[in-house]
């Protein structure tokens, strides 16, 4: 019953005109950036952060959340129509979706993706509403030692499930943690690594890093590559409604994808990306009807399953952020930053101190998902037109919005210069094959981690064994260690590399 009351409160908040408008705005913007290649949700949310100073906390977060799941929808559109996944999580959608488009079945593929995503989004929202309160209860039992260990698990989890070299990813986390140390020490008040520059004593803004690395750094690397020539299936999109047979094939795939995605989304580092890869593998292993189209040649299950999974994963990845204040991926890290900007300390207390925000955000996600189905299916023609916008118009626009955002952070040109610096750093990371997302996670968690570590040591009078003698903390650290060991095992290592092969 409490669940229903909570949801009623949430829908009450979400159904106000302002909040509906912001959810709509976020969903549209998310679809837009999902469709436009070369601009992802991380850079967009970073660009918008300075402007949320002018908004209330609830509409601001509703809009940012809308951008995140809107991008999942938009990303699948480009994956199906031009074989260019707008978002990393739509990479597998391109495998079968594009083949369907080539066979003139783009409409059915888009519908399967849209309706599957909507179903998954609905289930994901329910799961958040049902599981957030008990998890929050648990979080209140956490002391500094448990929080520290939890952050270790979160950071390790974020990289073991990602692609690429594990040692390099952990190094990037450490680099992020270290950049987070450029600040004034909260306990002693000593400015660290500031070189007597007054702006640095407050720390580097995470918006500055996000824009520099994900905004400018991306642009430089995109411009460094030769322009691609793409084949767009714009004229063939008709027959939007799938056939009865399509429904029969895609339905179970959507169910399986939703289940898998909901579970993987909660795990640190899971989120949408891993969910879609896992769902595609599951669909390939599941037996279909005898005369089905083979996978990789336009099987509708290969579109429906992963699309449902990535949307479910995108929804449930809000759970660790909302209940524990610990972001499982880079987008959630920015959401944590947005809450801090609005003066809300992320963590288990958000549910009790800001119930309007908490339940309103959850309810708005369902509304946002509904709007996205409407936006994407009948209006697909408009989004297709956008695909024809050349990059030479797009990248100056990104530069403009980022530069204005950087300046307005503190009404100071110092942040613009820092952004230019991180543009170089971001390009170096790209060239050296160092994935920047873990760096951002480390940067956000760095100060929190240090504070909890030092408080835990203070409470235990300098006894490091406190992390192992407290059962919850010990359990978490063992889990982190197990994750590293398991991924290092040769058999799993090969599987992991294999699983990410499709990505290239």
């Amino acid at each position, binding site marked *: 019953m409490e669940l229903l009351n909570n949801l009623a409160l949430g829908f009450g908040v979400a159904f106000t005109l302002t909040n509906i408008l912001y959810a709509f705005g976020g969903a549209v913007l998310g679809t837009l950036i999902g469709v436009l290649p070369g601009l992802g949700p991380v850079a967009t949310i970073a660009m918008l952060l*300075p*402007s949320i*100073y*002018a908004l209330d906390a609830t509409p601001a977060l509703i809009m940012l959340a809308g951008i995140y799941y809107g991008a999942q929808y938009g990303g699948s559109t480009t994956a199906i129509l031009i074989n260019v996944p707008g978002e990393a999580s739509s990479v597998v959608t391109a495998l079968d979706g594009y083949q369907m488009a080539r066979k003139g079945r783009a409409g059915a593929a888009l519908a399967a993706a849209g309706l599957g995503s909507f179903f998954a989004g609905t289930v994901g929202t329910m799961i958040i509403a049902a599981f957030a309160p008990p998890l929050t209860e648990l979080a209140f039992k956490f002391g500094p030692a448990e929080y520290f260990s939890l952050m270790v698990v979160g950071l390790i989890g974020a990289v073991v499930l990602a692609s690429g*070299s594990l*040692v*390099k990813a*952990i*190094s990037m986390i*450490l*680099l992020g*943690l*270290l950049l987070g*140390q450029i600040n004034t*020490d909260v*306990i*002693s008040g*000593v400015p*660290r*690594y500031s070189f007597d520059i007054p702006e640095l004593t407050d720390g580097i803004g995470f918006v500055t890093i996000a824009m520099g690395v994900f905004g*400018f750094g991306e*642009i*430089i*690397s995109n*411009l*460094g590559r030769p322009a691609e020539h793409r084949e767009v299936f714009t004229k063939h999109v008709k027959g939007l409604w799938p056939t009865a047979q399509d429904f029969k094939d895609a339905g179970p795939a959507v169910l399986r994808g939703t289940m898998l995605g909901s579970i993987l989304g909660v795990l640190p580092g899971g989120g949408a990306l891993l969910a879609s890869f896992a769902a595609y593998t599951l669909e390939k292993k599941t037996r279909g009807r005898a005369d089905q189209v083979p996978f990789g040649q336009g099987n509708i299950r290969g579109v429906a399953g992963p699309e449902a999974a990535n949307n479910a994963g995108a929804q449930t990845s809000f759970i660790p952020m909302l209940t524990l204040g610990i972001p499982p991926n880079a987008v959630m890290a920015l959401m944590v930053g947005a809450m801090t900007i609005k003066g809300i300390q992320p963590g288990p207390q958000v549910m009790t101190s800001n119930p309007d925000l908490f339940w309103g955000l959850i309810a708005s996600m369902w509304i946002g998902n509904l709007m996205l189905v409407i936006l994407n299916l009948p209006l697909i023609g408009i989004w297709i037109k956008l695909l024809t916008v*050349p990059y*030479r*118009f797009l*990248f*100056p*626009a990104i*530069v*403009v*919005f980022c*530069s*204005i955002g950087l*300046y*307005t952070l503190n*009404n100071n*040109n110092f942040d*613009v*210069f820092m952004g*230019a610096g991180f*543009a*170089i750093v971001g*390009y*170096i990371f790209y*060239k*050296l*094959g160092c994935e920047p997302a873990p760096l951002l996670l480390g940067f956000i968690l760095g100060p929190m*981690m240090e504070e909890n*570590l*030092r408080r835990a*040591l*203070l409470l235990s*009078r*300098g*006894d*490091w064994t406190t992390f192992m003698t407290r059962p919850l903390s010990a359990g978490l650290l063992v889990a982190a260690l197990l994750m590293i060991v398991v991924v290092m095992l040769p058999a799993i290592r090969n599987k992991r590399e294999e699983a990410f092969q499709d990505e290239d």
Partner: protein
Amino acid sequence: MKIKSQKDFWSGLMFIVTGVAFAWGALSYSFGNSARPGPAYFPFGLGILLAVLGAAVLFGALTIETDDGDPIGKWAWKPLFIIVLSLIGFGVVLPKLGLLISLPLLVFVVSTAGDEFHWKDALLNAAILTGLSYVVFVKGLSLTLPVWPTFMTAAS
């Protein structure tokens, strides 16, 4: 000794240098003791750990065979320079000349970073983006941005 992976070799070196630099920088702050950790405690530990992991990456780059030597490839110097310099320029010019002059300049200069540059397109883009930014940021969100050049606002 032959480098087997260029990318990992340089990443390893980058991690070692940054880790050592942070650890070395931490030496000037108070360590405290483990019962009362000082400001140097956490960054020193992290810096050492990063340097160790960097060494592991470097070691891997020198020992583990790769197919093609994992080359870094050509650096895109032109877009790198144009974008970084135009950002710095924008930061310098904005407080003096205001948004309505610095923004079109930024768009126009940044546009030259791409392979396809048409001055008509760039001018059009500059006009659209400046207008849009003025409406959204100055009028809509009422952010505090210098709009006009200082010599004009000072005179009035």
